Protein backbone atom coordinates (compact mmCIF):
# COMPACT_ATOMS: atom_id res chain seq x y z
CA UNK A 1 0.00 0.00 0.00
CA UNK A 2 2.81 2.42 0.93
CA UNK A 3 4.60 1.51 -2.27
CA UNK A 4 1.51 2.35 -4.29
CA UNK A 5 1.22 5.78 -2.64
CA UNK A 6 4.84 6.45 -3.34
CA UNK A 7 4.43 5.40 -6.94
CA UNK A 8 1.42 7.68 -7.47
CA UNK A 9 3.21 10.57 -5.81
CA UNK A 10 6.19 10.08 -8.08
CA UNK A 11 3.95 9.84 -11.09
CA UNK A 12 2.19 13.09 -10.16
CA UNK A 13 5.52 14.85 -9.75
CA UNK A 14 6.68 13.70 -13.16
CA UNK A 15 3.48 14.84 -14.81
CA UNK A 16 3.76 18.24 -13.14
CA UNK A 17 7.37 18.50 -14.28
CA UNK A 18 6.37 17.66 -17.80
CA UNK A 19 3.58 20.25 -17.74
CA UNK A 20 5.92 22.87 -16.31
CA UNK A 21 8.50 22.12 -18.98
CA UNK A 22 5.84 22.40 -21.64
CA UNK A 23 4.61 25.70 -20.28
CA UNK A 24 8.08 27.26 -20.29
CA UNK A 25 9.49 25.66 -23.38
CA UNK A 26 8.08 27.93 -26.04
CA UNK A 27 9.09 31.17 -24.37
CA UNK A 28 12.53 31.58 -25.95
CA UNK A 29 14.46 29.36 -28.28
CA UNK A 30 17.52 29.44 -30.50
CA UNK A 31 18.39 26.68 -32.95
CA UNK A 32 20.04 25.90 -36.21
CA UNK A 33 18.66 27.88 -39.12
CA UNK A 34 19.92 25.48 -41.73
CA UNK A 35 23.17 24.31 -43.19
CA UNK A 36 26.06 26.81 -42.86
CA UNK A 37 28.27 27.55 -45.86
CA UNK A 38 31.90 28.51 -46.42
CA UNK A 39 33.63 30.07 -49.43
CA UNK A 40 37.21 31.07 -50.21
CA UNK A 41 38.72 28.51 -47.88
CA UNK A 42 41.81 26.38 -48.34
CA UNK A 43 41.60 23.26 -46.20
CA UNK A 44 38.61 24.80 -44.46
CA UNK A 45 35.13 23.53 -43.67
CA UNK A 46 32.00 24.25 -41.71
CA UNK A 47 29.69 21.74 -40.10
CA UNK A 48 26.21 22.20 -38.75
CA UNK A 49 22.74 20.73 -39.04
CA UNK A 50 20.41 21.41 -41.94
CA UNK A 51 17.39 20.70 -39.74
CA UNK A 52 16.00 23.92 -38.25
CA UNK A 53 14.63 21.88 -35.37
CA UNK A 54 18.10 20.89 -34.24
CA UNK A 55 20.27 22.67 -31.73
CA UNK A 56 22.70 25.34 -32.88
CA UNK A 57 26.04 23.58 -32.81
CA UNK A 58 28.35 24.79 -35.56
CA UNK A 59 32.04 24.18 -36.10
CA UNK A 60 33.87 26.55 -38.42
CA UNK A 61 37.33 25.71 -39.70
CA UNK A 62 38.61 28.68 -41.64
CA UNK A 63 41.57 26.62 -42.78
CA UNK A 64 44.72 28.26 -44.07
CA UNK A 65 44.65 32.05 -43.69
CA UNK A 66 48.27 32.85 -44.43
CA UNK A 67 49.13 34.15 -47.94
CA UNK A 68 49.20 30.49 -48.97
CA UNK A 69 45.47 31.04 -49.36
CA UNK A 70 45.32 33.26 -52.41
CA UNK A 71 41.59 33.90 -52.17
CA UNK A 72 40.68 37.45 -51.23
CA UNK A 73 38.53 36.43 -48.28
CA UNK A 74 37.17 33.42 -46.42
CA UNK A 75 33.45 33.86 -45.78
CA UNK A 76 31.18 31.79 -43.56
CA UNK A 77 27.41 32.14 -43.31
CA UNK A 78 25.68 30.53 -40.32
CA UNK A 79 21.86 30.62 -40.43
CA UNK A 80 20.33 30.83 -36.95
CA UNK A 81 16.65 30.32 -36.08
CA UNK A 82 14.81 32.05 -33.24
CA UNK A 83 11.46 31.41 -31.57
CA UNK A 84 9.68 33.29 -28.80
CA UNK A 85 6.26 34.25 -27.54
CA UNK A 86 7.54 37.49 -26.04
CA UNK A 87 9.96 40.31 -26.90
CA UNK A 88 13.47 38.91 -27.16
CA UNK A 89 17.09 39.83 -27.53
CA UNK A 90 20.01 37.83 -28.86
CA UNK A 91 23.44 38.28 -27.35
CA UNK A 92 26.82 36.80 -28.17
CA UNK A 93 29.86 36.22 -26.01
CA UNK A 94 33.29 35.09 -27.10
CA UNK A 95 36.03 33.11 -25.44
CA UNK A 96 39.47 32.27 -26.76
CA UNK A 97 41.48 34.05 -29.43
CA UNK A 98 43.89 35.66 -27.00
CA UNK A 99 47.10 35.77 -29.03
CA UNK A 100 49.78 37.82 -27.26
CA UNK A 101 51.62 38.49 -30.51
CA UNK A 102 49.95 41.49 -32.12
CA UNK A 103 50.85 40.15 -35.55
CA UNK A 104 49.05 36.87 -34.91
CA UNK A 105 45.34 36.43 -35.59
CA UNK A 106 43.26 38.71 -33.36
CA UNK A 107 39.52 39.02 -32.72
CA UNK A 108 39.58 42.17 -34.85
CA UNK A 109 40.77 40.11 -37.81
CA UNK A 110 37.51 38.15 -38.01
CA UNK A 111 34.72 40.28 -39.37
CA UNK A 112 31.31 39.56 -37.88
CA UNK A 113 27.95 40.88 -38.96
CA UNK A 114 24.27 39.99 -39.22
CA UNK A 115 22.17 39.93 -42.34
CA UNK A 116 18.81 38.82 -43.67
CA UNK A 117 16.48 38.70 -40.68
CA UNK A 118 13.54 36.83 -42.15
CA UNK A 119 10.55 34.65 -41.41
CA UNK A 120 11.32 31.03 -40.77
CA UNK A 121 7.90 30.16 -42.14
CA UNK A 122 4.19 30.68 -41.92
CA UNK A 123 4.01 30.28 -38.17
CA UNK A 124 6.33 33.20 -37.59
CA UNK A 125 4.70 36.19 -35.97
CA UNK A 126 4.46 39.31 -38.10
CA UNK A 127 4.27 42.34 -35.84
CA UNK A 128 3.20 45.74 -37.08
CA UNK A 129 4.18 47.89 -34.13
CA UNK A 130 7.81 46.89 -33.70
CA UNK A 131 10.63 45.72 -35.92
CA UNK A 132 13.53 43.38 -35.46
CA UNK A 133 16.60 45.52 -34.94
CA UNK A 134 20.18 44.49 -35.66
CA UNK A 135 22.18 46.41 -33.13
CA UNK A 136 24.98 48.70 -34.20
CA UNK A 137 27.60 48.06 -35.55
CA UNK A 138 26.63 44.55 -36.60
CA UNK A 139 24.23 45.33 -39.45
CA UNK A 140 26.63 44.58 -42.29
CA UNK A 141 28.20 41.88 -44.39
CA UNK A 142 31.85 41.93 -43.28
CA UNK A 143 33.00 40.41 -46.54
CA UNK A 144 31.93 43.57 -48.34
CA UNK A 145 32.82 46.14 -45.68
CA UNK A 146 36.43 45.04 -45.26
CA UNK A 147 38.93 47.84 -45.79
CA UNK A 148 42.69 48.21 -45.50
CA UNK A 149 43.63 50.36 -42.53
CA UNK A 150 46.48 52.88 -42.44
CA UNK A 151 48.83 50.21 -41.08
CA UNK A 152 48.04 47.95 -44.01
CA UNK A 153 45.97 45.47 -42.00
CA UNK A 154 42.42 44.62 -43.01
CA UNK A 155 39.69 45.97 -40.75
CA UNK A 156 35.93 45.48 -40.65
CA UNK A 157 32.92 47.59 -39.76
CA UNK A 158 32.26 45.06 -37.03
CA UNK A 159 34.33 42.14 -35.89
CA UNK A 160 34.65 39.70 -33.03
CA UNK A 161 36.51 42.49 -31.25
CA UNK A 162 33.21 44.38 -31.20
CA UNK A 163 31.97 41.85 -28.65
CA UNK A 164 32.55 42.98 -25.10
CA UNK A 165 31.17 40.37 -22.74
CA UNK A 166 27.66 39.22 -23.67
CA UNK A 167 26.80 41.74 -26.36
CA UNK A 168 23.28 42.24 -27.68
CA UNK A 169 23.27 41.97 -31.45
CA UNK A 170 19.57 41.65 -32.24
CA UNK A 171 16.25 42.36 -30.54
CA UNK A 172 12.60 42.67 -31.38
CA UNK A 173 9.01 41.66 -30.70
CA UNK A 174 7.67 38.13 -30.30
CA UNK A 175 8.69 35.75 -33.02
CA UNK A 176 6.17 32.91 -32.99
CA UNK A 177 2.43 32.69 -33.52
CA UNK A 178 1.90 29.49 -31.65
CA UNK A 179 2.79 28.19 -28.25
CA UNK A 180 3.96 24.80 -29.26
CA UNK A 181 5.89 22.88 -26.71
CA UNK A 182 8.36 21.78 -29.28
CA UNK A 183 10.29 23.35 -32.12
CA UNK A 184 8.52 23.51 -35.41
CA UNK A 185 9.98 24.18 -38.79
CA UNK A 186 8.09 27.40 -39.44
CA UNK A 187 7.35 28.99 -36.08
CA UNK A 188 9.84 31.83 -35.84
CA UNK A 189 12.47 33.89 -37.58
CA UNK A 190 15.99 33.33 -38.77
CA UNK A 191 19.01 35.44 -39.58
CA UNK A 192 22.48 34.95 -41.03
CA UNK A 193 25.54 35.35 -38.84
CA UNK A 194 28.30 36.24 -41.32
CA UNK A 195 31.99 35.78 -40.58
CA UNK A 196 34.83 36.98 -42.83
CA UNK A 197 38.56 36.50 -42.57
CA UNK A 198 41.06 37.95 -45.04
CA UNK A 199 44.23 35.86 -45.49
CA UNK A 200 47.21 37.93 -44.42
CA UNK A 201 50.82 37.70 -43.28
CA UNK A 202 49.69 36.73 -39.78
CA UNK A 203 52.30 35.30 -37.46
CA UNK A 204 52.22 31.53 -37.80
CA UNK A 205 50.08 29.48 -35.44
CA UNK A 206 46.67 27.96 -34.83
CA UNK A 207 43.93 30.03 -33.25
CA UNK A 208 40.49 29.12 -31.98
CA UNK A 209 37.47 30.78 -30.43
CA UNK A 210 34.04 29.86 -29.16
CA UNK A 211 30.96 32.01 -29.60
CA UNK A 212 27.86 31.45 -27.51
CA UNK A 213 24.63 32.84 -28.93
CA UNK A 214 21.92 33.36 -26.30
CA UNK A 215 18.30 34.42 -26.51
CA UNK A 216 16.65 36.08 -23.53
CA UNK A 217 13.68 38.35 -22.75
CA UNK A 218 14.25 41.64 -24.52
CA UNK A 219 13.14 45.25 -24.07
CA UNK A 220 9.51 46.09 -24.51
CA UNK A 221 8.53 45.73 -28.16
CA UNK A 222 4.77 45.66 -28.75
CA UNK A 223 3.57 43.49 -31.51
Amino acid at each position, binding site marked *: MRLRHFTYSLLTCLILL*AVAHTAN*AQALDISSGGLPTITGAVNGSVSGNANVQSDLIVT*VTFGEVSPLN*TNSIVKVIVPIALRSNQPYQVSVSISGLNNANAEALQASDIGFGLQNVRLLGGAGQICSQSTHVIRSPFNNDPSTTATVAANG*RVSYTSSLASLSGPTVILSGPELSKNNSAK*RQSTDGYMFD*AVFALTPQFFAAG*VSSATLIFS*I*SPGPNAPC
Partner: protein
Amino acid sequence: MPRQTSTQITKFILLTTLLVVSAVSCLGQSTTGTVTMSATVSKFVEINSGGAVTLSGNSGGGVTTDGVTNSPLAVSINLGELGPSNTNSFVTAQVPLKLRSNAPYVLSMTASVSSSGTSASRIGAADVGFGLGTISRLGIGVNTTGTDTNATSGDPTLAANGSVNGTTGRYEFTAVRSNLSAFSSATTALSGPIIMNAVPRSNANGLTVPAFFAVKPQFFENGTTTISVTFIVTAP
Protein backbone atom coordinates in the same frame (compact mmCIF):
# COMPACT_ATOMS: atom_id res chain seq x y z
CA MET B 1 -8.46 -6.11 -9.73
CA PRO B 2 -5.67 -8.44 -8.75
CA ARG B 3 -2.80 -6.74 -6.98
CA GLN B 4 -0.24 -7.97 -9.54
CA THR B 5 -2.22 -6.54 -12.47
CA SER B 6 -2.55 -3.20 -10.72
CA THR B 7 1.20 -3.06 -10.19
CA GLN B 8 1.85 -3.79 -13.83
CA ILE B 9 -0.51 -1.04 -14.96
CA THR B 10 1.18 1.38 -12.60
CA LYS B 11 4.58 0.46 -13.99
CA PHE B 12 3.29 0.87 -17.51
CA ILE B 13 1.93 4.36 -16.77
CA LEU B 14 5.17 5.30 -15.07
CA LEU B 15 7.24 4.16 -18.03
CA THR B 16 4.98 5.98 -20.47
CA THR B 17 5.29 9.17 -18.45
CA LEU B 18 9.04 8.92 -18.43
CA LEU B 19 9.07 8.48 -22.19
CA VAL B 20 6.81 11.51 -22.63
CA VAL B 21 9.03 13.60 -20.38
CA SER B 22 12.08 12.49 -22.33
CA ALA B 23 10.41 13.27 -25.62
CA VAL B 24 9.41 16.75 -24.50
CA SER B 25 12.96 17.36 -23.37
CA CYS B 26 14.38 16.23 -26.70
CA LEU B 27 12.03 18.28 -28.81
CA GLY B 28 12.05 21.26 -26.50
CA GLN B 29 13.90 24.51 -26.91
CA SER B 30 17.23 25.87 -25.91
CA THR B 31 18.23 29.42 -25.11
CA THR B 32 21.84 29.02 -26.21
CA GLY B 33 23.75 27.83 -29.23
CA THR B 34 27.44 27.44 -29.92
CA VAL B 35 29.70 28.31 -32.83
CA THR B 36 33.29 27.17 -32.46
CA MET B 37 35.89 28.32 -34.93
CA SER B 38 39.54 27.78 -35.71
CA ALA B 39 42.06 29.02 -38.24
CA THR B 40 45.56 28.03 -39.23
CA VAL B 41 48.43 30.28 -40.22
CA SER B 42 51.31 28.37 -41.72
CA LYS B 43 54.79 29.77 -42.20
CA PHE B 44 54.98 31.55 -45.51
CA VAL B 45 57.98 32.84 -47.47
CA GLU B 46 58.39 33.96 -51.02
CA ILE B 47 61.00 35.45 -53.31
CA ASN B 48 60.18 37.55 -56.32
CA SER B 49 61.89 39.97 -58.61
CA GLY B 50 62.52 43.35 -57.08
CA GLY B 51 62.67 45.07 -60.44
CA ALA B 52 64.72 45.47 -63.57
CA VAL B 53 68.30 44.20 -63.88
CA THR B 54 71.12 46.71 -64.24
CA LEU B 55 74.00 45.59 -66.44
CA SER B 56 77.11 47.74 -66.61
CA GLY B 57 80.66 47.50 -67.95
CA ASN B 58 79.59 45.07 -70.61
CA SER B 59 80.86 44.88 -74.13
CA GLY B 60 78.13 43.29 -76.15
CA GLY B 61 75.63 41.13 -74.41
CA GLY B 62 72.59 42.48 -72.59
CA VAL B 63 69.67 41.51 -70.44
CA THR B 64 67.86 38.73 -72.24
CA THR B 65 64.99 38.29 -69.77
CA ASP B 66 64.53 41.17 -67.41
CA GLY B 67 63.08 41.15 -63.92
CA VAL B 68 59.56 42.44 -63.36
CA THR B 69 58.73 43.76 -59.92
CA ASN B 70 56.70 41.30 -57.82
CA SER B 71 56.84 38.63 -60.49
CA PRO B 72 58.63 35.32 -60.10
CA LEU B 73 62.38 35.72 -60.37
CA ALA B 74 63.50 34.36 -63.75
CA VAL B 75 66.26 36.54 -65.10
CA SER B 76 68.59 35.79 -67.99
CA ILE B 77 71.67 37.91 -68.68
CA ASN B 78 74.32 37.80 -71.37
CA LEU B 79 77.43 39.33 -69.82
CA GLY B 80 79.02 39.82 -73.26
CA GLU B 81 82.73 39.83 -73.85
CA LEU B 82 84.85 38.96 -70.79
CA GLY B 83 88.23 38.86 -72.53
CA PRO B 84 90.77 41.67 -72.57
CA SER B 85 88.98 43.30 -75.48
CA ASN B 86 86.52 44.52 -72.89
CA THR B 87 88.51 47.33 -71.33
CA ASN B 88 86.11 48.03 -68.49
CA SER B 89 87.34 47.10 -65.04
CA PHE B 90 84.29 44.92 -64.29
CA VAL B 91 81.18 43.62 -65.97
CA THR B 92 78.52 43.89 -63.30
CA ALA B 93 74.93 42.71 -63.15
CA GLN B 94 72.72 43.94 -60.37
CA VAL B 95 69.59 41.82 -59.81
CA PRO B 96 67.01 43.23 -57.37
CA LEU B 97 65.37 40.62 -55.13
CA LYS B 98 62.20 40.99 -53.07
CA LEU B 99 61.51 38.75 -50.08
CA ARG B 100 58.38 38.45 -47.96
CA SER B 101 57.59 36.24 -45.00
CA ASN B 102 55.47 35.85 -41.89
CA ALA B 103 58.32 34.08 -40.11
CA PRO B 104 62.09 34.42 -39.73
CA TYR B 105 63.66 33.58 -43.06
CA VAL B 106 66.87 32.24 -44.57
CA LEU B 107 67.89 33.04 -48.14
CA SER B 108 70.32 30.52 -49.52
CA MET B 109 71.84 30.18 -52.93
CA THR B 110 73.28 27.49 -55.15
CA ALA B 111 75.49 28.33 -58.13
CA SER B 112 77.14 26.39 -60.90
CA VAL B 113 79.56 27.58 -63.56
CA SER B 114 80.42 25.58 -66.65
CA SER B 115 82.80 26.61 -69.39
CA SER B 116 83.72 25.25 -72.80
CA GLY B 117 87.35 25.86 -71.89
CA THR B 118 89.55 23.06 -70.66
CA SER B 119 92.49 24.74 -69.02
CA ALA B 120 92.91 26.36 -65.64
CA SER B 121 92.53 29.70 -67.38
CA ARG B 122 88.91 29.08 -68.23
CA ILE B 123 86.28 31.01 -66.34
CA GLY B 124 85.43 29.21 -63.13
CA ALA B 125 83.09 29.82 -60.18
CA ALA B 126 85.81 31.71 -58.32
CA ASP B 127 86.03 34.21 -61.19
CA VAL B 128 82.42 35.29 -60.74
CA GLY B 129 82.12 37.74 -57.92
CA PHE B 130 78.95 37.79 -55.87
CA GLY B 131 77.49 39.72 -53.00
CA LEU B 132 74.28 41.15 -51.61
CA GLY B 133 73.97 44.90 -51.29
CA THR B 134 72.02 47.18 -49.00
CA ILE B 135 68.97 45.55 -47.41
CA SER B 136 65.86 47.68 -47.43
CA ARG B 137 62.70 47.20 -45.39
CA LEU B 138 60.43 50.00 -46.47
CA GLY B 139 56.73 50.65 -46.81
CA ILE B 140 53.46 50.07 -44.99
CA GLY B 141 53.14 46.64 -43.51
CA VAL B 142 56.85 45.83 -43.46
CA ASN B 143 58.30 44.81 -40.12
CA THR B 144 61.27 47.01 -39.29
CA THR B 145 62.28 45.47 -36.00
CA GLY B 146 65.21 43.11 -35.80
CA THR B 147 68.35 42.86 -37.89
CA ASP B 148 69.07 41.11 -41.17
CA THR B 149 72.36 39.29 -41.42
CA ASN B 150 74.18 39.54 -44.72
CA ALA B 151 76.48 36.55 -44.97
CA THR B 152 78.19 37.91 -48.05
CA SER B 153 80.70 40.73 -48.26
CA GLY B 154 78.53 43.04 -50.30
CA ASP B 155 79.43 44.50 -53.66
CA PRO B 156 82.22 42.25 -54.99
CA THR B 157 83.75 45.09 -56.99
CA LEU B 158 84.70 46.97 -53.85
CA ALA B 159 88.46 47.20 -53.44
CA ALA B 160 88.24 45.48 -50.08
CA ASN B 161 86.63 42.41 -51.60
CA GLY B 162 89.20 41.44 -54.20
CA SER B 163 92.56 42.04 -55.75
CA VAL B 164 95.12 40.75 -58.21
CA ASN B 165 96.91 37.70 -56.93
CA GLY B 166 100.55 38.74 -56.54
CA THR B 167 101.77 35.33 -57.62
CA THR B 168 99.46 34.32 -60.42
CA GLY B 169 98.40 37.76 -61.59
CA ARG B 170 94.81 36.58 -61.79
CA TYR B 171 92.16 38.80 -60.26
CA GLU B 172 90.49 37.10 -57.29
CA PHE B 173 87.43 37.85 -55.21
CA THR B 174 88.92 37.13 -51.82
CA ALA B 175 86.40 38.30 -49.22
CA VAL B 176 84.03 35.96 -47.38
CA ARG B 177 81.42 34.48 -49.72
CA SER B 178 82.38 36.99 -52.40
CA ASN B 179 82.42 34.59 -55.35
CA LEU B 180 80.33 31.70 -56.58
CA SER B 181 82.75 29.00 -55.47
CA ALA B 182 81.35 29.53 -51.99
CA PHE B 183 77.92 28.47 -53.22
CA SER B 184 78.58 25.18 -54.93
CA SER B 185 75.96 23.77 -52.56
CA ALA B 186 73.08 25.57 -50.87
CA THR B 187 74.69 28.20 -48.69
CA THR B 188 73.12 30.94 -46.64
CA ALA B 189 73.48 34.40 -48.13
CA LEU B 190 71.01 36.32 -45.97
CA SER B 191 68.81 35.71 -42.94
CA GLY B 192 66.64 37.73 -40.67
CA PRO B 193 63.43 38.19 -38.69
CA ILE B 194 59.82 38.28 -39.91
CA ILE B 195 59.52 40.56 -42.91
CA MET B 196 55.82 41.34 -43.07
CA ASN B 197 53.34 42.43 -40.45
CA ALA B 198 49.77 41.15 -40.65
CA VAL B 199 48.81 42.61 -44.01
CA PRO B 200 47.21 40.95 -47.03
CA ARG B 201 49.24 39.52 -49.85
CA SER B 202 47.99 42.31 -52.09
CA ASN B 203 50.28 44.63 -50.14
CA ALA B 204 53.22 44.90 -52.55
CA ASN B 205 55.88 45.90 -50.06
CA GLY B 206 58.64 43.70 -48.71
CA LEU B 207 62.36 43.38 -48.14
CA THR B 208 64.45 44.32 -51.16
CA VAL B 209 68.10 43.61 -51.69
CA PRO B 210 70.28 43.77 -54.81
CA ALA B 211 72.30 40.72 -55.77
CA PHE B 212 75.58 41.71 -57.43
CA PHE B 213 77.39 39.53 -59.94
CA ALA B 214 80.73 40.70 -61.31
CA VAL B 215 83.42 39.39 -63.60
CA LYS B 216 86.80 41.03 -64.12
CA PRO B 217 87.69 40.87 -67.87
CA GLN B 218 90.96 38.99 -68.13
CA PHE B 219 92.97 36.73 -70.43
CA PHE B 220 90.56 33.86 -69.80
CA GLU B 221 90.75 30.87 -72.07
CA ASN B 222 88.43 31.62 -74.94
CA GLY B 223 85.11 29.88 -75.07
CA THR B 224 81.62 30.27 -73.67
CA THR B 225 80.58 30.06 -70.08
CA THR B 226 77.20 29.42 -68.47
CA ILE B 227 76.49 30.60 -64.95
CA SER B 228 73.39 29.32 -63.21
CA VAL B 229 72.22 30.64 -59.86
CA THR B 230 69.23 29.50 -57.80
CA PHE B 231 67.92 31.44 -54.82
CA ILE B 232 65.89 29.60 -52.20
CA VAL B 233 64.12 31.23 -49.29
CA THR B 234 62.94 29.14 -46.36
CA ALA B 235 61.41 29.61 -42.92
CA PRO B 236 63.24 27.13 -40.72
